[in-house]
Protein backbone atom coordinates (compact mmCIF):
# COMPACT_ATOMS: atom_id res chain seq x y z
CA UNK A 1 0.00 0.00 0.00
CA UNK A 2 1.07 3.52 -0.81
CA UNK A 3 -0.19 5.91 1.78
CA UNK A 4 -0.09 9.65 2.29
CA UNK A 5 -0.69 10.99 5.78
CA UNK A 6 -1.57 14.56 6.53
CA UNK A 7 0.85 15.88 3.94
CA UNK A 8 1.78 19.53 3.70
CA UNK A 9 3.84 20.85 0.80
CA UNK A 10 5.27 24.32 0.42
CA UNK A 11 6.80 25.80 -2.73
CA UNK A 12 9.56 28.40 -2.56
CA UNK A 13 9.35 28.37 1.25
CA UNK A 14 6.14 30.41 1.18
CA UNK A 15 3.42 28.90 -0.97
CA UNK A 16 1.43 26.33 0.95
CA UNK A 17 -0.06 24.14 -1.76
CA UNK A 18 -0.99 20.88 0.00
CA UNK A 19 -2.73 21.47 3.32
CA UNK A 20 -2.87 18.17 5.10
CA UNK A 21 -3.68 15.62 2.41
CA UNK A 22 -4.32 12.01 3.33
CA UNK A 23 -4.86 9.28 0.78
CA UNK A 24 -4.46 5.53 0.48
CA UNK A 25 -3.65 3.50 -2.58
CA UNK A 26 -4.10 -0.17 -1.63
CA UNK A 27 -1.97 -2.66 -3.55
CA UNK A 28 -3.75 -4.02 -6.61
CA UNK A 29 -6.29 -1.23 -6.89
CA UNK A 30 -6.94 1.68 -9.20
CA UNK A 31 -7.42 4.93 -7.34
CA UNK A 32 -8.62 8.10 -9.07
CA UNK A 33 -7.55 11.55 -7.92
CA UNK A 34 -9.74 14.29 -9.33
CA UNK A 35 -9.80 18.03 -9.02
CA UNK A 36 -9.76 21.29 -10.91
CA UNK A 37 -6.70 23.11 -12.24
CA UNK A 38 -4.33 24.13 -9.51
CA UNK A 39 -5.89 21.88 -6.87
CA UNK A 40 -2.50 20.33 -6.17
CA UNK A 41 -2.79 16.95 -7.86
CA UNK A 42 0.52 17.18 -9.64
CA UNK A 43 2.16 18.44 -6.48
CA UNK A 44 0.94 15.36 -4.64
CA UNK A 45 2.41 13.09 -7.31
CA UNK A 46 5.71 14.97 -7.10
CA UNK A 47 5.75 14.33 -3.39
CA UNK A 48 5.20 10.61 -4.07
CA UNK A 49 7.95 10.34 -6.67
CA UNK A 50 10.54 12.59 -5.05
CA UNK A 51 10.40 15.33 -7.66
CA UNK A 52 9.51 18.23 -5.38
CA UNK A 53 13.16 19.28 -5.10
CA UNK A 54 13.32 20.15 -8.77
CA UNK A 55 10.50 22.65 -8.23
CA UNK A 56 11.76 24.13 -4.99
CA UNK A 57 9.00 22.33 -3.18
CA UNK A 58 9.32 20.81 0.27
CA UNK A 59 7.31 18.51 2.48
CA UNK A 60 6.81 20.48 5.69
CA UNK A 61 4.52 18.08 7.51
CA UNK A 62 3.09 14.60 7.27
CA UNK A 63 4.47 11.47 5.69
CA UNK A 64 4.44 9.18 2.70
CA UNK A 65 4.50 5.48 3.49
CA UNK A 66 5.27 2.66 1.11
CA UNK A 67 4.22 -0.66 2.59
CA UNK A 68 4.34 1.01 5.99
CA UNK A 69 7.82 2.43 5.58
CA UNK A 70 8.36 6.17 5.37
CA UNK A 71 9.72 7.08 1.93
CA UNK A 72 9.40 10.85 1.77
CA UNK A 73 12.81 12.39 1.44
CA UNK A 74 14.04 9.56 -0.77
CA UNK A 75 15.47 10.57 -4.12
CA UNK A 76 13.52 9.77 -7.30
CA UNK A 77 15.93 7.03 -8.31
CA UNK A 78 15.48 5.30 -4.95
CA UNK A 79 11.70 5.50 -5.26
CA UNK A 80 11.79 4.07 -8.78
CA UNK A 81 13.94 1.22 -7.47
CA UNK A 82 11.34 0.58 -4.77
CA UNK A 83 8.64 0.32 -7.36
CA UNK A 84 7.05 3.77 -7.64
CA UNK A 85 7.08 5.26 -11.15
CA UNK A 86 5.42 8.39 -12.43
CA UNK A 87 4.21 9.34 -15.88
CA UNK A 88 4.42 13.10 -15.81
CA UNK A 89 1.88 15.55 -17.06
CA UNK A 90 2.41 16.49 -20.70
CA UNK A 91 4.07 13.19 -21.72
CA UNK A 92 7.58 14.57 -21.59
CA UNK A 93 9.11 12.05 -23.95
CA UNK A 94 12.77 12.49 -24.88
CA UNK A 95 11.95 13.86 -28.32
CA UNK A 96 15.50 13.59 -29.69
CA UNK A 97 15.77 9.92 -28.79
CA UNK A 98 14.21 7.06 -30.70
CA UNK A 99 11.23 5.18 -29.33
CA UNK A 100 13.37 2.30 -28.16
CA UNK A 101 15.96 4.62 -26.61
CA UNK A 102 13.19 6.27 -24.61
CA UNK A 103 12.12 2.88 -23.36
CA UNK A 104 15.68 1.93 -22.47
CA UNK A 105 16.05 5.08 -20.38
CA UNK A 106 12.91 3.96 -18.58
CA UNK A 107 14.72 0.74 -17.76
CA UNK A 108 17.67 2.59 -16.26
CA UNK A 109 17.11 1.16 -12.79
CA UNK A 110 16.04 -2.25 -14.03
CA UNK A 111 18.87 -3.15 -16.40
CA UNK A 112 18.62 -6.85 -15.57
CA UNK A 113 14.98 -7.23 -16.57
CA UNK A 114 15.26 -4.77 -19.45
CA UNK A 115 14.75 -7.26 -22.28
CA UNK A 116 11.82 -8.90 -20.54
CA UNK A 117 10.13 -5.56 -19.78
CA UNK A 118 10.69 -4.43 -23.35
CA UNK A 119 8.78 -7.47 -24.59
CA UNK A 120 5.97 -6.71 -22.17
CA UNK A 121 5.74 -3.09 -23.27
CA UNK A 122 5.85 -4.03 -26.95
CA UNK A 123 3.10 -6.52 -26.19
CA UNK A 124 0.97 -3.74 -24.77
CA UNK A 125 1.85 -1.32 -27.57
CA UNK A 126 2.51 -3.14 -30.84
CA UNK A 127 2.64 0.24 -32.51
CA UNK A 128 5.66 1.28 -30.51
CA UNK A 129 7.40 -1.86 -31.63
CA UNK A 130 6.74 -0.96 -35.25
CA UNK A 131 8.16 2.51 -34.68
CA UNK A 132 10.95 1.55 -32.39
CA UNK A 133 13.69 3.07 -34.54
CA UNK A 134 11.80 6.30 -35.20
CA UNK A 135 12.74 9.52 -33.51
CA UNK A 136 10.05 9.86 -30.89
CA UNK A 137 9.52 13.58 -31.43
CA UNK A 138 7.68 12.76 -34.64
CA UNK A 139 5.09 10.50 -33.01
CA UNK A 140 1.53 11.75 -32.71
CA UNK A 141 0.22 12.96 -29.36
CA UNK A 142 -1.52 9.68 -28.63
CA UNK A 143 1.54 7.67 -29.56
CA UNK A 144 3.69 9.86 -27.35
CA UNK A 145 1.36 9.22 -24.43
CA UNK A 146 1.67 5.47 -25.04
CA UNK A 147 5.43 5.86 -25.12
CA UNK A 148 5.43 7.82 -21.85
CA UNK A 149 3.41 5.07 -20.17
CA UNK A 150 5.52 2.34 -21.74
CA UNK A 151 8.69 4.06 -20.59
CA UNK A 152 7.45 4.13 -17.00
CA UNK A 153 6.53 0.44 -17.19
CA UNK A 154 10.10 -0.38 -18.23
CA UNK A 155 11.15 0.07 -14.61
CA UNK A 156 8.72 -2.70 -13.66
CA UNK A 157 6.83 -0.54 -11.14
CA UNK A 158 4.46 -1.90 -8.52
CA UNK A 159 2.82 1.51 -8.26
CA UNK A 160 2.22 3.59 -11.37
CA UNK A 161 1.31 7.25 -10.96
CA UNK A 162 -0.39 8.66 -14.05
CA UNK A 163 -0.79 12.42 -14.35
CA UNK A 164 -3.61 13.32 -16.74
CA UNK A 165 -2.87 10.70 -19.39
CA UNK A 166 -5.96 11.58 -21.40
CA UNK A 167 -5.22 15.28 -21.63
CA UNK A 168 -5.60 16.62 -25.14
CA UNK A 169 -6.49 13.26 -26.68
CA UNK A 170 -9.45 12.61 -28.97
CA UNK A 171 -12.32 10.62 -27.42
CA UNK A 172 -11.36 7.36 -29.13
CA UNK A 173 -7.84 7.70 -27.73
CA UNK A 174 -9.21 8.50 -24.29
CA UNK A 175 -11.01 5.16 -24.43
CA UNK A 176 -7.73 3.50 -25.37
CA UNK A 177 -6.03 5.09 -22.39
CA UNK A 178 -8.80 3.83 -20.15
CA UNK A 179 -8.50 0.28 -21.48
CA UNK A 180 -4.79 0.53 -21.04
CA UNK A 181 -5.11 1.50 -17.39
CA UNK A 182 -7.36 -1.49 -16.82
CA UNK A 183 -4.95 -3.82 -18.60
CA UNK A 184 -1.91 -2.54 -16.70
CA UNK A 185 -3.79 -3.03 -13.47
CA UNK A 186 -4.88 -6.50 -14.51
CA UNK A 187 -1.22 -7.38 -15.07
CA UNK A 188 -0.58 -6.57 -11.42
CA UNK A 189 0.38 -2.91 -11.24
CA UNK A 190 -1.40 -0.62 -8.80
CA UNK A 191 -2.49 2.64 -10.41
CA UNK A 192 -3.00 6.12 -9.02
CA UNK A 193 -4.78 7.95 -11.80
CA UNK A 194 -4.89 11.74 -11.78
CA UNK A 195 -7.48 13.00 -14.21
CA UNK A 196 -9.64 15.94 -15.15
CA UNK A 197 -11.73 13.56 -17.17
CA UNK A 198 -13.68 12.41 -14.12
CA UNK A 199 -16.08 10.11 -15.93
CA UNK A 200 -13.29 8.18 -17.54
CA UNK A 201 -11.25 7.93 -14.36
CA UNK A 202 -14.16 6.90 -12.14
CA UNK A 203 -15.35 4.32 -14.65
CA UNK A 204 -12.18 2.29 -14.07
CA UNK A 205 -11.25 3.22 -10.51
CA UNK A 206 -12.09 1.35 -7.32
CA UNK A 207 -11.88 4.43 -5.21
CA UNK A 208 -11.97 8.16 -5.90
CA UNK A 209 -10.60 11.23 -4.17
CA UNK A 210 -11.57 14.77 -5.04
CA UNK A 211 -9.12 17.52 -4.29
CA UNK A 212 -9.76 21.23 -3.97
CA UNK A 213 -7.14 23.88 -3.24
CA UNK A 214 -4.78 21.54 -1.49
CA UNK A 215 -7.32 19.48 0.47
CA UNK A 216 -9.15 16.24 -0.07
CA UNK A 217 -12.82 17.20 -0.01
CA UNK A 218 -14.32 13.90 -1.03
CA UNK A 219 -13.21 10.34 -0.51
CA UNK A 220 -15.60 7.60 -1.69
CA UNK A 221 -15.81 4.41 -3.70
CA UNK A 222 -15.67 5.38 -7.34
CA UNK A 223 -19.07 3.95 -8.14
CA UNK A 224 -20.70 6.19 -5.54
CA UNK A 225 -19.00 9.29 -6.85
CA UNK A 226 -20.05 8.41 -10.35
CA UNK A 227 -23.65 7.82 -9.34
CA UNK A 228 -24.11 10.97 -7.30
CA UNK A 229 -25.40 13.76 -9.55
CA UNK A 230 -24.71 16.49 -7.00
CA UNK A 231 -21.08 15.53 -6.63
CA UNK A 232 -20.68 15.43 -10.36
CA UNK A 233 -22.16 18.87 -10.67
CA UNK A 234 -20.38 20.58 -7.78
CA UNK A 235 -16.99 18.99 -7.68
CA UNK A 236 -16.37 17.55 -11.07
CA UNK A 237 -17.97 20.11 -13.36
CA UNK A 238 -19.97 17.43 -15.10
CA UNK A 239 -23.44 18.94 -15.07
CA UNK A 240 -25.77 18.88 -18.03
CA UNK A 241 -23.28 20.73 -20.23
CA UNK A 242 -20.41 18.76 -18.76
CA UNK A 243 -18.73 17.90 -22.00
CA UNK A 244 -18.63 21.48 -23.24
CA UNK A 245 -17.35 22.78 -19.95
CA UNK A 246 -14.54 20.34 -19.56
CA UNK A 247 -13.51 20.95 -23.14
CA UNK A 248 -13.21 24.64 -22.41
CA UNK A 249 -11.20 23.79 -19.33
CA UNK A 250 -8.81 21.75 -21.33
CA UNK A 251 -8.25 24.58 -23.76
CA UNK A 252 -7.77 27.03 -20.96
CA UNK A 253 -5.37 24.66 -19.35
CA UNK A 254 -3.26 24.26 -22.42
CA UNK A 255 -3.06 27.98 -22.95
CA UNK A 256 -1.98 28.46 -19.36
CA UNK A 257 0.66 25.83 -19.80
CA UNK A 258 2.13 27.68 -22.73
CA UNK A 259 2.41 30.88 -20.76
CA UNK A 260 4.15 29.09 -17.99
CA UNK A 261 6.74 27.47 -20.17
Amino acid at each position, binding site marked *: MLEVRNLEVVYDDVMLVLRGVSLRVPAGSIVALLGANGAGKTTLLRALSGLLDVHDGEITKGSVLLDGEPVHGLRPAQLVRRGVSQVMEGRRI*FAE*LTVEENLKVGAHTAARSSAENLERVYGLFPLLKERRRNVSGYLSGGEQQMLAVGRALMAGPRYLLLDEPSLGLAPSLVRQVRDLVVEINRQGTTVLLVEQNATMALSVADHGYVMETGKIVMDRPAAELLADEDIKEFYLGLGAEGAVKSFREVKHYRRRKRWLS
Partner: protein
Amino acid sequence: MKGVLESLVRGLGNGSVYALLALGFVIVYKATRVISFAQPAFMIAGAVAVSHLAGTTGFYLAVPLAALLVAGLALGVERVAIRPMVGRPVFVVAIITLGIDVVVRVVVNGFIGLDVRQVGDPWGLSLVEVGGLAVQQRWIAMLLTTAVLVSLLFAFFRYTRYGLAMRAAAFDQETALAQGVSVGMVFALSWALAGGLAAIAGTFAGTGQGVDQLTWIIALKALPAIIVGGLDSLGGAVIGGLAIGVVESLVQSYQGDLAPWLGQNFAVVTPYAVMLLVLLVRPYGLFGTPEVERV
Protein backbone atom coordinates in the same frame (compact mmCIF):
# COMPACT_ATOMS: atom_id res chain seq x y z
CA MET B 1 48.89 21.07 -54.49
CA LYS B 2 51.19 18.85 -52.46
CA GLY B 3 51.79 21.77 -50.13
CA VAL B 4 48.08 22.32 -49.65
CA LEU B 5 47.52 18.67 -48.77
CA GLU B 6 50.40 18.64 -46.33
CA SER B 7 49.07 21.75 -44.70
CA LEU B 8 45.65 20.09 -44.53
CA VAL B 9 47.03 17.06 -42.69
CA ARG B 10 48.80 19.32 -40.22
CA GLY B 11 45.50 21.16 -39.73
CA LEU B 12 43.62 17.93 -39.11
CA GLY B 13 46.29 16.83 -36.64
CA ASN B 14 46.15 20.03 -34.65
CA GLY B 15 42.39 20.13 -35.15
CA SER B 16 42.07 16.80 -33.33
CA VAL B 17 43.44 18.49 -30.24
CA TYR B 18 40.77 21.17 -30.50
CA ALA B 19 38.12 18.58 -31.30
CA LEU B 20 38.83 16.50 -28.18
CA LEU B 21 38.79 19.59 -25.99
CA ALA B 22 35.64 20.87 -27.68
CA LEU B 23 33.95 17.52 -27.06
CA GLY B 24 34.66 17.93 -23.37
CA PHE B 25 33.17 21.40 -23.35
CA VAL B 26 30.05 20.20 -25.13
CA ILE B 27 29.60 17.09 -22.96
CA VAL B 28 29.76 19.16 -19.78
CA TYR B 29 27.56 21.85 -21.28
CA LYS B 30 24.89 19.39 -22.31
CA ALA B 31 24.85 17.73 -18.92
CA THR B 32 25.06 20.80 -16.71
CA ARG B 33 24.36 23.84 -18.95
CA VAL B 34 27.64 25.25 -17.78
CA ILE B 35 30.67 26.01 -19.92
CA SER B 36 33.53 24.59 -17.94
CA PHE B 37 36.57 26.82 -18.14
CA ALA B 38 38.54 24.20 -16.29
CA GLN B 39 39.35 22.38 -19.51
CA PRO B 40 42.77 24.04 -20.04
CA ALA B 41 43.88 22.86 -16.61
CA PHE B 42 42.79 19.27 -17.25
CA MET B 43 44.51 19.33 -20.60
CA ILE B 44 47.81 20.43 -19.11
CA ALA B 45 47.44 18.06 -16.17
CA GLY B 46 47.11 15.21 -18.66
CA ALA B 47 50.22 16.20 -20.59
CA VAL B 48 52.23 16.59 -17.42
CA ALA B 49 51.03 13.28 -16.02
CA VAL B 50 52.13 11.56 -19.22
CA SER B 51 55.52 13.27 -19.08
CA HIS B 52 56.08 11.94 -15.58
CA LEU B 53 54.66 8.46 -16.19
CA ALA B 54 56.17 7.75 -19.62
CA GLY B 55 59.63 7.18 -18.15
CA THR B 56 58.45 4.23 -16.09
CA THR B 57 55.47 2.82 -17.94
CA GLY B 58 56.30 3.78 -21.51
CA PHE B 59 54.35 6.33 -23.51
CA TYR B 60 51.55 4.11 -24.75
CA LEU B 61 50.53 2.97 -21.30
CA ALA B 62 51.11 6.42 -19.82
CA VAL B 63 48.44 8.01 -22.01
CA PRO B 64 45.45 5.93 -20.85
CA LEU B 65 46.75 6.06 -17.28
CA ALA B 66 46.97 9.85 -17.43
CA ALA B 67 43.48 10.02 -18.95
CA LEU B 68 42.13 7.96 -16.06
CA LEU B 69 44.04 10.02 -13.54
CA VAL B 70 42.71 13.31 -14.89
CA ALA B 71 39.20 11.86 -15.22
CA GLY B 72 39.46 11.03 -11.53
CA LEU B 73 40.70 14.52 -10.78
CA ALA B 74 37.80 16.03 -12.70
CA LEU B 75 35.41 13.74 -10.85
CA GLY B 76 36.76 14.96 -7.52
CA VAL B 77 36.62 18.60 -8.55
CA GLU B 78 33.03 18.18 -9.70
CA ARG B 79 32.08 16.55 -6.43
CA VAL B 80 33.75 19.10 -4.20
CA ALA B 81 33.30 22.38 -6.06
CA ILE B 82 30.51 22.00 -8.58
CA ARG B 83 27.88 19.70 -7.07
CA PRO B 84 27.20 21.98 -4.09
CA MET B 85 26.52 24.75 -6.61
CA VAL B 86 23.70 22.94 -8.41
CA GLY B 87 20.78 25.28 -8.80
CA ARG B 88 22.93 28.42 -8.66
CA PRO B 89 22.92 30.72 -11.68
CA VAL B 90 24.88 29.19 -14.51
CA PHE B 91 27.28 32.09 -14.76
CA VAL B 92 28.23 31.75 -11.10
CA VAL B 93 29.15 28.14 -11.72
CA ALA B 94 31.09 29.13 -14.84
CA ILE B 95 33.13 31.58 -12.78
CA ILE B 96 33.82 28.81 -10.29
CA THR B 97 35.17 26.65 -13.11
CA LEU B 98 37.52 29.52 -13.98
CA GLY B 99 38.75 29.48 -10.39
CA ILE B 100 39.23 25.71 -10.57
CA ASP B 101 41.24 26.18 -13.74
CA VAL B 102 43.61 28.64 -12.10
CA VAL B 103 44.08 26.53 -8.98
CA VAL B 104 44.69 23.29 -10.85
CA ARG B 105 47.10 24.99 -13.22
CA VAL B 106 49.11 26.51 -10.39
CA VAL B 107 49.45 23.08 -8.82
CA VAL B 108 50.32 21.45 -12.14
CA ASN B 109 52.88 24.17 -12.93
CA GLY B 110 54.81 22.87 -9.94
CA PHE B 111 55.19 19.60 -11.84
CA ILE B 112 56.28 21.33 -15.02
CA GLY B 113 59.00 23.56 -13.70
CA LEU B 114 60.41 26.44 -15.68
CA ASP B 115 61.63 24.47 -18.66
CA VAL B 116 59.88 22.60 -21.39
CA ARG B 117 58.93 19.05 -20.43
CA GLN B 118 58.86 16.34 -23.06
CA VAL B 119 55.87 14.02 -22.97
CA GLY B 120 58.02 11.13 -24.15
CA ASP B 121 56.13 10.49 -27.35
CA PRO B 122 57.79 8.21 -29.90
CA TRP B 123 57.08 10.54 -32.83
CA GLY B 124 58.91 13.78 -32.18
CA LEU B 125 58.90 15.75 -35.39
CA SER B 126 59.77 12.85 -37.67
CA LEU B 127 58.08 12.66 -41.00
CA VAL B 128 56.39 9.79 -42.71
CA GLU B 129 55.49 9.53 -46.36
CA VAL B 130 51.81 8.97 -47.07
CA GLY B 131 50.74 8.86 -50.70
CA GLY B 132 53.60 11.05 -51.81
CA LEU B 133 53.07 13.58 -49.05
CA ALA B 134 55.64 14.20 -46.37
CA VAL B 135 53.69 14.65 -43.11
CA GLN B 136 54.62 14.42 -39.48
CA GLN B 137 53.91 11.06 -37.89
CA ARG B 138 52.31 12.66 -34.88
CA TRP B 139 49.58 14.27 -36.95
CA ILE B 140 48.60 10.92 -38.36
CA ALA B 141 48.70 9.36 -34.90
CA MET B 142 46.58 12.17 -33.45
CA LEU B 143 44.01 11.98 -36.20
CA LEU B 144 43.68 8.21 -35.95
CA THR B 145 43.44 8.21 -32.16
CA THR B 146 40.81 10.92 -32.31
CA ALA B 147 38.82 8.96 -34.87
CA VAL B 148 38.84 5.94 -32.56
CA LEU B 149 37.94 7.97 -29.49
CA VAL B 150 35.11 9.77 -31.24
CA SER B 151 33.68 6.47 -32.48
CA LEU B 152 33.87 5.00 -28.99
CA LEU B 153 32.21 8.08 -27.57
CA PHE B 154 29.36 7.98 -30.05
CA ALA B 155 28.87 4.29 -29.40
CA PHE B 156 28.80 5.05 -25.68
CA PHE B 157 26.05 7.65 -26.10
CA ARG B 158 24.10 5.46 -28.44
CA TYR B 159 24.26 1.99 -26.98
CA THR B 160 25.08 2.07 -23.30
CA ARG B 161 22.76 2.57 -20.37
CA TYR B 162 24.74 5.49 -18.99
CA GLY B 163 25.18 7.10 -22.37
CA LEU B 164 21.44 7.02 -22.98
CA ALA B 165 20.82 8.36 -19.49
CA MET B 166 23.14 11.27 -20.22
CA ARG B 167 21.37 12.10 -23.46
CA ALA B 168 18.00 11.88 -21.74
CA ALA B 169 19.13 14.14 -18.91
CA ALA B 170 20.58 16.62 -21.38
CA PHE B 171 17.20 16.81 -23.06
CA ASP B 172 14.98 16.99 -19.98
CA GLN B 173 16.56 16.69 -16.58
CA GLU B 174 13.37 16.30 -14.54
CA THR B 175 11.99 13.57 -16.75
CA ALA B 176 15.30 11.74 -16.61
CA LEU B 177 15.11 11.95 -12.82
CA ALA B 178 11.62 10.49 -12.94
CA GLN B 179 13.01 7.47 -14.80
CA GLY B 180 15.43 6.85 -11.95
CA VAL B 181 18.46 8.46 -13.60
CA SER B 182 20.66 10.09 -10.99
CA VAL B 183 21.52 13.58 -12.15
CA GLY B 184 24.54 13.58 -9.85
CA MET B 185 25.83 10.59 -11.77
CA VAL B 186 25.28 12.43 -15.06
CA PHE B 187 27.20 15.48 -13.81
CA ALA B 188 30.07 13.36 -12.51
CA LEU B 189 30.31 11.30 -15.67
CA SER B 190 30.32 14.38 -17.88
CA TRP B 191 33.18 15.92 -15.94
CA ALA B 192 35.12 12.67 -15.94
CA LEU B 193 34.71 12.26 -19.70
CA ALA B 194 35.71 15.87 -20.33
CA GLY B 195 38.74 15.45 -18.08
CA GLY B 196 39.88 12.25 -19.80
CA LEU B 197 39.47 13.73 -23.27
CA ALA B 198 41.30 16.91 -22.25
CA ALA B 199 44.18 14.83 -20.89
CA ILE B 200 44.61 13.09 -24.23
CA ALA B 201 44.32 16.41 -26.06
CA GLY B 202 47.03 17.81 -23.82
CA THR B 203 49.29 14.88 -24.56
CA PHE B 204 48.79 15.47 -28.27
CA ALA B 205 49.54 19.14 -27.86
CA GLY B 206 52.76 18.20 -26.10
CA THR B 207 54.02 15.81 -28.78
CA GLY B 208 56.94 17.11 -30.81
CA GLN B 209 57.45 20.32 -28.89
CA GLY B 210 56.82 19.34 -25.24
CA VAL B 211 54.80 21.30 -22.68
CA ASP B 212 55.60 24.39 -20.68
CA GLN B 213 53.62 26.69 -18.43
CA LEU B 214 51.96 28.39 -21.40
CA THR B 215 50.78 25.35 -23.33
CA TRP B 216 47.30 25.65 -21.78
CA ILE B 217 46.58 28.57 -24.11
CA ILE B 218 46.03 26.05 -26.90
CA ALA B 219 42.85 24.98 -25.10
CA LEU B 220 41.33 28.37 -25.71
CA LYS B 221 41.10 27.52 -29.40
CA ALA B 222 38.51 24.91 -28.52
CA LEU B 223 36.15 27.77 -27.69
CA PRO B 224 35.93 28.96 -31.30
CA ALA B 225 35.51 25.29 -32.21
CA ILE B 226 32.39 24.89 -30.09
CA ILE B 227 30.97 28.21 -31.20
CA VAL B 228 31.47 27.15 -34.82
CA GLY B 229 30.09 23.65 -34.26
CA GLY B 230 27.31 24.61 -31.88
CA LEU B 231 27.49 24.49 -28.11
CA ASP B 232 25.18 21.51 -27.81
CA SER B 233 26.31 19.33 -30.68
CA LEU B 234 28.88 16.55 -30.25
CA GLY B 235 29.29 16.12 -33.99
CA GLY B 236 29.61 19.88 -34.27
CA ALA B 237 32.43 19.88 -31.72
CA VAL B 238 34.41 17.38 -33.77
CA ILE B 239 33.82 19.12 -37.07
CA GLY B 240 34.33 22.55 -35.51
CA GLY B 241 37.62 21.48 -33.97
CA LEU B 242 38.94 19.96 -37.18
CA ALA B 243 37.75 22.95 -39.23
CA ILE B 244 39.50 25.41 -36.94
CA GLY B 245 42.69 23.36 -37.17
CA VAL B 246 42.56 23.21 -40.95
CA VAL B 247 41.80 26.88 -41.49
CA GLU B 248 44.52 27.85 -39.06
CA SER B 249 47.04 25.63 -40.81
CA LEU B 250 46.16 26.84 -44.30
CA VAL B 251 46.35 30.46 -43.21
CA GLN B 252 49.69 29.78 -41.60
CA SER B 253 50.99 28.25 -44.84
CA TYR B 254 49.65 30.72 -47.36
CA GLN B 255 48.56 34.00 -45.85
CA GLY B 256 52.11 35.40 -45.94
CA ASP B 257 52.15 35.02 -49.74
CA LEU B 258 48.51 35.63 -50.61
CA ALA B 259 47.59 38.37 -48.14
CA PRO B 260 50.75 39.86 -46.69
CA TRP B 261 48.81 42.99 -45.70
CA LEU B 262 47.21 40.99 -42.85
CA GLY B 263 50.56 41.08 -41.13
CA GLN B 264 52.68 38.28 -39.73
CA ASN B 265 51.22 35.56 -37.55
CA PHE B 266 47.67 36.18 -38.63
CA ALA B 267 47.18 32.41 -38.22
CA VAL B 268 47.15 32.91 -34.47
CA VAL B 269 43.90 34.82 -34.61
CA THR B 270 42.18 32.86 -37.39
CA PRO B 271 40.22 30.61 -35.01
CA TYR B 272 38.60 33.71 -33.60
CA ALA B 273 38.08 35.27 -37.02
CA VAL B 274 36.32 32.10 -38.18
CA MET B 275 34.23 32.15 -35.02
CA LEU B 276 33.10 35.72 -35.66
CA LEU B 277 32.19 34.89 -39.24
CA VAL B 278 30.08 31.92 -38.17
CA LEU B 279 28.43 33.93 -35.42
CA LEU B 280 27.32 36.49 -38.00
CA VAL B 281 25.68 33.87 -40.18
CA ARG B 282 24.49 31.28 -37.65
CA PRO B 283 24.60 32.54 -34.07
CA TYR B 284 23.90 29.07 -32.69
CA GLY B 285 26.72 27.41 -34.61
CA LEU B 286 26.63 25.21 -37.67
CA PHE B 287 25.10 22.23 -35.90
CA GLY B 288 23.66 23.77 -32.75
CA THR B 289 20.04 24.20 -31.74
CA PRO B 290 18.66 27.71 -32.18
CA GLU B 291 17.31 27.87 -28.61
CA VAL B 292 20.75 27.76 -27.11
CA GLU B 293 21.31 31.10 -25.48
CA ARG B 294 24.60 32.82 -25.52
CA VAL B 295 25.63 35.66 -23.31
